C-alpha cells in the first residue's frame, strides 16, 4: 500500500512538465485517440443532458417515439409541480446542511488525524493505522439494523445529526490526508518549528494545515458530493418528509403513482444542479485532487 512520492509534486497536479513534453514531441496524437475520448465523454454527458431534456419537456419526451432530443420550455413549470408534490425546498436545505457540515468536518478532522499519523510518533500508531485501513474494507451497511437501533436509542431517528455525526470523519479521508502530508511537508521544517518550541497543535495549525489546505478542500468537496448523494442511510433513518434529504425526495417523486416521469427527472436534475455548479468552479481541482491521492506506481 506504500506509495512512492514524486519529489516534484506540489499540491495541485499540473499538466505534465514541459520537460517530458519536449521529449515526447515526436509522438503525434492520432485522430482515433480523439474519437475514443469523444465517445467516452459523450457517454458521460448524455444521460445528464437527457435528464434535462425530459425535465424541460415533460413525460411526453420520455414516451414519445421517436424521442425528442431538444430541450423544451417547461422546466420551470415542472419544477413548480415538483415543489408542490414534495417539500423539496426543505429537502435541499437539509441536504445542504448535512453535506456542508460533513465537508467541513472531514476537511478538518481528517487533516488533523492524517497529520498525527504522518508526522508524529506515538505508541500504537502503526496498529491504529492498520485498524483504520481495515475498517475501509468492511461496508458499514451490513450493520444497518443495529445502527438504526442505536439512532433510535439516541433519539436521533428523523434528525439530521444521524447523518452528520457518523460522517464527520472518514478512514479514507485520514488515509488520504496522511499521504498528502507525508508528501508535501518536510520533516526538517517541522523539526525547526519544534526547536522553536512550537507544540504539535501549533505546528499543525500554523504550518501543516495551511500547506495542505488545498488538498483538504478537495477532500471536503468529495465529502460534500458523497454526503449530498448518499441514499441508503438517509432512506432508513429519515422517515418524515420534512426531514428528507434531496435524494430521498427524488425517491418520493419516483414512487408517487399519480405523477409522471417528467417530474422525477425534473427533481433529479434539480438535485444535480448544485453539484454541476460546484463542479464547474472546482472540477479541475477535484480531478487533480483525485489523481493526486492516487497510488503512484
Amino acid at each position: 500500500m506504500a506509495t512512492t512520492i514524486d519529489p516534484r509534486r506540489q499540491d495541485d497536479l499540473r499538466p505534465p512538465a514541459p520537460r517530458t513534453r519536449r521529449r515526447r514531441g515526436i509522438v503525434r496524437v492520432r485522430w482515433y485517440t480523439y474519437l475514443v475520448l469523444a465517445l467516452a465523454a459523450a457517454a458521460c454527458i448524455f444521460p445528464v443532458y437527457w435528464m434535462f431534456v425530459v425535465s424541460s419537456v415533460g413525460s411526453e419526451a420520455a414516451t414519445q417515439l421517436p424521442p425528442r432530443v431538444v430541450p423544451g420550455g417547461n422546466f420551470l413549470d415542472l419544477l413548480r409541480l415538483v415543489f408542490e408534490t414534495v417539500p423539496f425546498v426543505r429537502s435541499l436545505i437539509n441536504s445542504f446542511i448535512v453535506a456542508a457540515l460533513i465537508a467541513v468536518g472531514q476537511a478538518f478532522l481528517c487533516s488533523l488525524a492524517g497529520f498525527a499519523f504522518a508526522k508524529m510518533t506515538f505508541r500504537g500508531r502503526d496498529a491504529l493505522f492498520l485498524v483504520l485501513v481495515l475498517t475501509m474494507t468492511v461496508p458499514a451497511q451490513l450493520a444497518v439494523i443495529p445502527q438504526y437501533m442505536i439512532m433510535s436509542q439516541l433519539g436521533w431517528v428523523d434528525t439530521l445529526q444521524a447523518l452528520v455525526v457518523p460522517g464527520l470523519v472518514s478512514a479514507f479521508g485520514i488515509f488520504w490526508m496522511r499521504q498528502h502530508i507525508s508528501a508535501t511537508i518536510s520533516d526538517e521544517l517541522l523539526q525547526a518549528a519544534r526547536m522553536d518550541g512550537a507544540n504539535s497543535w501549533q505546528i499543525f495549525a500554523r504550518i501543516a494545515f495551511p500547506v495542505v489546505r488545498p488538498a483538504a478542500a478537495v477532500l471536503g468537496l468529495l465529502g460534500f458530493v458523497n454526503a449530498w448523494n448518499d441514499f441508503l442511510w438517509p432512506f432508513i433513518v429519515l422517515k418524515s418528509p420534512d426531514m428528507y434529504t434531496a435524494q430521498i425526495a427524488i425517491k418520493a417523486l419516483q414512487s408517487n403513482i399519480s405523477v409522471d416521469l417528467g417530474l422525477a427527472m425534473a427533481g433529479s436534475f434539480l438535485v444535480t444542479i448544485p453539484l454541476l455548479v460546484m463542479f464547474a468552479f472546482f472540477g479541475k481541482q477535484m480531478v487533480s485532487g483525485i489523481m493526486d491521492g492516487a497510488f503512484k506506481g
Partner: protein
Amino acid sequence: MQNKLSAPQSATSRVLSTSLSRRRALALSALAGGTALTASACSSGGSSGSSDPNTFEFWSFTGINQKDSVEEYKKLAPDVTVKLTEVGNAQETAQGLTTALAGGKVPDLVLIQAGDLPKFMKNPGNFVDLTTLGADDIQDDYVDWVMAQATAKSGEIIGIPTDVGGMGVAYRTDLMAAAGLPTNRDEVSALWPTWQDFIATGQRYTQATGNAFIDNAATTVFLQAVSQGEEQYYSADGDVVYDTNPIVRESFDLGLAAIAAGITAKLESFTDGWNAGMAKGAFAAVAAPSWMLGSIRSAAPDTEGKWDIAVIPGGSGNWGGSYLAIPARAANPQAAWKYITTMQSPEQQLQHFIDAGSLPTTPVNYDKPELVDHTDPFFGGAPTGKIFTQAVLGLEPFVNGEYNTEISTELLNALNGVEGDGAPADAAWDTATKNIKTAIGA
C-alpha cells in the same frame, strides 16, 4: 454524546445566520433547533414535536388524494393546521410508519391500507385505543365487517374506516366501439357475468384490434377474483389457508388463463409504463375499485369522457379501502381524533364521495339520492355510487392476517413473472406457494 451533539448545531446556526437575512435565518434556526430538540429527547423516541393543540401531522400515501380532504377540513376548522405528507405508496407508508413506531418521530394521524392493517393489529399497543376517545359511540355508523377488521380481539379499536374499495371495471367506450363491441354499460356488464366470460370478451377485443384488452392479469383478474372470496388467505379462525382455499387457486388459474389468452398488455399496475399505457390507450379495460378512479383521472387526464364503468364479473367484491389511526406516542391525539370524527362523519363521507369518488363506509349513505344518483362525467356519466355500492352490499366479513401482504405479493409476482418475464405457467403456482412458505416461515 452531548459534546459532540452541540457542535454541529451551533455551527449550523452560525453558518445560517451569517449568510441569510435575519428573518429567514430565524426561520431556519428554528428548523435546526427543531432537530436539536428531538436529539435531546429521551430514548423512548421523540414525539412529533408540535405542542400546539391546533397543529397536527398526518401521513398518507400517494394516489389516494387526501389533499382534498385536508383542504375541506381547513374550511370546516380554519384555525387548525394539518401538516399532510404523502410518504410513498401504501406499502412504503406502512413501512415508514413501522420504522417510526420502532423509535422515530411518529405522526399524529396516519392512513393505513386495509391489507397492511393486520400487521399493526397484532400489536395494538402501538396505537391509541380509539374507544378511549369515544369510538364506541360512533362505531355503529360504519359497515360491520369493515369495522370488525380494525377491532382487536381484546376490544381495542385501532382505526376508523375511510372508504371501501367496491369493485367495478373501467373501460374505454371509444376502444370498445372500434372493436365492434357494445359500449353501453349495461350491455357491457352483460358481456361478463363470470370471469371466463370476461376473458372471452377480451379475446374478441384482441382479435378485432390486435391490442391488449386489460393492463395485466395479476391485478385486473387474479386480485379481483380472489378478493371476492368470503375466505381469502386466512380462514375465519385466522389460520393460513391460501394453499388449500380453492378460491385462491381458482383465481390464480383465471389469471393464468387471461395471460394464455394473450389479452394482457404486460403493464404492471402503478408503474410508469402503466400510466403511459393508460394515457395512450394501450388497453381497453382495467379493474377499478372506487379509489382507483382518481388514479385513472390523474394518469390519463386527456381521456376524460372516454371511459365508462361496468359491473365486475361475479357482481360484487371489495379491494382495498383504508383506515385512519392514531399512534400511541402521537403528540396531539385530540386534534387527530377531531379530524377523524369530522371528516369521517356520514355527512362528510358523502360529501367526499361526491367530490372525489371514494365509496363511504357509512351504510346510512348507501340509499341517499346524492349517492345513488351521482354520476361521473369523466367516466361517461356512470352512476358510480350505485355501481360500487352494489359491489359491497351483502359482503360478509372476511379475515385478513398478519402476512396478507407477503402472500399477495408472491402470488402477484408469480403471475407477473409468467406474463411479463416469460416464466413457465405450469410451474407458477408451485413457485408462488414455495415462495410464500419461505417468506412467512422465516
